[in-house]
């Protein structure tokens, strides 16, 4: 699967999307779900929780293993996706559509510190070797 050019990426394999209303939607990448395999459990952060950049805030568990999910940037959790909590396999089906949570960023400019699609592709390629 190609890596969407309109998203930003953390080195820890989260994607982040700046929405029109100023919030940032977060999920894990296709590459991350592919490494983890069949997803069976998602635990999102509580709405209202304040997150620092790179803070552990969620967990995804596949049949194989549990994996921490980090916050790409600082902000406050304003929404969580109950659909992926109820049906974690949606992340396997389309990781870039199956978002996990939304944050109101402390500073939207922090997104500029994340990887773009090209840089993230390079990271994925380097991890494959």
């Amino acid at each position, binding site marked *: 699967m190609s890596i969407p050019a309109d998203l930003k990426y953390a080195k820890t394999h989260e994607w982040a999307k700046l929405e029109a209303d100023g919030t940032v939607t977060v999920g894990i990448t296709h590459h991350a779900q592919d490494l983890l*395999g*069949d997803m*069976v*459990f998602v*635990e999102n952060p509580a709405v209202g929780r304040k997150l620092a950049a790179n803070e552990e805030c969620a*967990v995804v*568990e596949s*049949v*194989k293993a*549990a994996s921490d999910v980090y916050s790409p940037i600082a902000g406050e959790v304003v929404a969580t996706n109950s659909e992926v909590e109820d049906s974690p396999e949606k992340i396997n089906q389309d990781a870039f559509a199956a978002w996990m949570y939304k944050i109101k960023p402390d500073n939207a400019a922090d997104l500029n510190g994340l990887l773009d699609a090209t840089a993230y592709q390079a990271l994925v390629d380097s991890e494959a070797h």
Partner: protein
Amino acid sequence: MLKQTPLNQAHRNMGAKMVDFGGWDMPLHYGSQLDEHHKVRQGSGMFDVCHMLVVDVTGAGVRDFLRQTMANNVDKLTVTGKALYSCMLNPEGGVIDDLIIYFMREDWFRIVVNAGTADKDVAWLIKQRDAHAPGLEIKPRRDLAMVAVQGPEARSKVWLAIPGSQAVSESLKPFQAVAYNQYFIARTGYTGEDGFEIMLPATEAESFWQALHGLGVSPIGLGARDTLRLEAGMNLYGQDMDEATNPLEAGLAWTVDLQSPRDFIGKSALQTRPVTHQLLGMVLQDKGVLRSHQKIITAKGDGEITSGGFSPTLNLSIAMGSMPVGVSPGDMVQVQIRDKLLNAKVVKYPFVRNGKGLI
């Protein structure tokens, strides 16, 4: 350099994701561990188990030798092809390995040992042989391949793949085997389903694998092998037991023969070691996934999960755990998962047998 089974190229051709499994380059899955799990429960699947080792022990007095080295009683084996599950213990009563012993002839017993313990097992057997039965030959059989075919349709697929095998293997009871042409066909397995484990010349492994595949038998990786065996409530060496484990505390008392007057390595230690724990099943009541090494908090004291995971058949999380004596099926316990205490119910295992949930 990772060790490869004779089926290595076949796995790659079938799209396997390969992983380092105890020094062996093995398939984790061929796309979806969950799909593979369900295929075995509902139809048939085949497993490359060539990394496990067949060891033939031959010569006059094999039975006596195994009476001393095995915790279960090989005197239960009197019919050719009959199999026995046993632990091999160290003098302290810890488990060197769990294995299957087949009775071939009075001067020939066949042992199948775990992959990760194979070298250690052979060295131990040779050491005991040198000390007590120098006339015996202990022969590792890396020239043999092993393929497990499991699931409700497994036996009928094997009968199609090996012409003429139905007549000789149809009446085999569980834990019985028969030699047929170049095949050694055993009605054993590690999934809680019916099926066969088949030994054959390594040079024939790939064509046999392809023949099964052509009949619609799905290749199954190590991922699904683990969820299937956990649902079946079967112990995994290195996880549910090891050399520090008292088998009487690990759900293996039924395999340890303390009744007969026969002496065996580890027996006297087991007779004096206090039994403080037991292996029980558990089902998570809250949302999450049980994993090995998580702490169990019970009214009788703490315990630890030895094998835990998600059960694809039951669609909930299950585990086997070491818990203090006094905890019983039906009791509620708590499991520490990260920063939370989640509720779990103690149950008897197996969790799934022949495709049906037992919880």
